[in-house]
């Protein structure tokens, strides 16, 4: 296996191609432009590859709907404001039970915000994002390697559960180059019967989200919900880092988790027993795993590049069993490990949990 040095955005593109992605539609927006550029180049080279620079984010996601229904592994990507535009189609994908992968390289917001790395779209991503009663599987990579691995996994998860899957990273993950090894993806196992390609001599098929009868719609909602419950039971992923002897656990994901690891190294050098709980799936959130940790550890500190979004999931998981503090840097600011270490140091001294948040 060859180790290569590649930029995050391009890693996603390459991993997608290797995973069999044959349809991409997207619209330019910083800081993820290298994804459409890479796909434009690579999809020319693979058989059946289709790249479309769409007229809008909205059009892109609806092209993905068509391509997914027609049986292609399909992807679109954008950054925060563009992801807001795509929500109509993501809701449709969930309703119609169509697989697709959506990449969000988050930037500062709300509104146009800026183009710096941010984690302000956690709520939008993990609560469905668009209208209606649905969830999206959300993966939060924290390294080049995970960008590759989780992109490949995203296609498998999307197929297995016939549901949209989102890669939630940020401008820093997208722009950074890091060594990566591309694993061999599993061959696709997606039943032909789900694919819309004309009725042939047989019965015609309908793919739709419109269900006018409330009782039928309710049943469809419960069907989706049962699927989401299976996903929540089977697909949560997290990483524990130096947590065995920890007295305080940092909870962070993606770029935030990288910074947290750097802070933890420094803190441990000063003799502070600090560890990290890193959710890898943001939805489903590793609730039970975090709750178990709260049985033996009393202090948690959530760190996010936002004003505090994942912290709500941490509270829901821990349910008052431990103290929970929060440190956030929204707006596109990427704090240094030193800054975070200093924050932890102050809170650790006071052994005080609920601080600084609202």
């Amino acid at each position: 296996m060859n180790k290569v040095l590649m930029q995050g955005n391009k890693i996603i593109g390459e991993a997608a191609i290797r995973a069999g992605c044959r349809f991409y539609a997207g619209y330019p927006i910083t800081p993820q432009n290298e994804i459409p550029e890479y796909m434009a180049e690579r999809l020319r080279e693979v058989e059946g590859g289709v790249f479309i620079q769409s007229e809008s984010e909205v059009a892109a996601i609806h092209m993905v709907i068509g391509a997914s229904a027609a049986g292609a592994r399909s992807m679109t990507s954008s950054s925060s404001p563009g992801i807001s535009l795509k929500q109509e189609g993501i809701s449709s994908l969930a309703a119609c039970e169509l697989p697709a992968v959506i990449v969000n390289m988050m930037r500062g917001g709300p509104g146009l915000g800026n183009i710096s790395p941010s984690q302000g779209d956690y709520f939008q991503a993990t609560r469905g994002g668009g209208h209606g009663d649905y969830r999206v599987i959300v993966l939060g990579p924290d390294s080049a390697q995970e960008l590759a691995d989780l992109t490949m996994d995203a296609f498998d998860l999307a197929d297995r559960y016939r549901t949209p899957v989102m890669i939630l990273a940020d401008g820093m993950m997208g722009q950074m180059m890091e060594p990566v090894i591309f694993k061999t993806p599993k061959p696709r196992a997606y039943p032909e019967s789900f694919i819309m390609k004309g009725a042939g001599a047989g019965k015609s098929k309908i793919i739709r989200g419109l269900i006018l009868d409330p009782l039928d719609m309710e049943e469809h909602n419960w069907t989706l919900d049962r699927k989401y419950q299976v996903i929540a039971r089977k697909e949560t992923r997290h990483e524990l880092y130096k947590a065995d002897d920890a007295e305080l656990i940092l909870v962070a994901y993606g770029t935030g988790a990288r910074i947290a690891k750097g802070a933890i190294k420094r803190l441990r050098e000063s003799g502070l027993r600090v560890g990290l709980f890193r959710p890898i799936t943001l939805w489903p959130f590793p609730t039970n795993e975090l709750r178990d940790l709260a049985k033996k550890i009393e202090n948690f500190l959530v760190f996010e590049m936002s004003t505090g979004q994942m912290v709500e999931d941490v509270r829901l998981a821990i349910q008052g069993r431990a103290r929970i503090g929060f440190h956030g840097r929204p707006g596109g600011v990427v704090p240094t490990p030193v800054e975070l270490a200093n924050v932890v140091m102050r809170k650790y001294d006071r052994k005080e949990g609920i601080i600084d948040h609202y």
Partner: protein
Amino acid sequence: MMVKTIFSGFGGQGVLMMGYSLAHGAMSAGYNVTFLPAYGAEVRGGTANCTVAVSDDEIASPIASEPDYIVVLNTPSLYTFQNRMAPGGALFLNSSIIAVEPSRHDVRIFKIPSSEMAEKLGNPRTANTVMMGAFLKITGLVPPDIYLRSMETVMGSKKKSVIEINRKAFAAGHEFLKIAE
């Protein structure tokens, strides 16, 4: 060990190439590396910079708030980055273009007339490679042979003559500081 370097200059001076080739070289030498280009709106304004972190441990943040080394190819870059440097670090500047004196006295300063040297070699575009020769001579981050292999790799399908002149440029930068010392 954790070393962070910022490369900075005008767009077109090969600033990103310096960082990319160093990152590739360090990866080939077995280190963990990150390479982070500045991608802000300022990139469109004609300046370019990038940050390379090299470590034998996991790299937490690819951003350098206190770089150990800076390599600056123009005056605005010197102003932007010299005050961020960690004390005891090393500052490499292109003295063909930068006429002002750095304000830092707690770092080692290396002035390399890289544009003139590159011109003398016959290709002014290799000033960045001259700087890399000098930079690796002092920092020893990556052995020259590994670096040169990486440089060829990242240059991709460039012509042999281009590779050759860059090798010469690297050697000139490397030699230059040997003589100066």
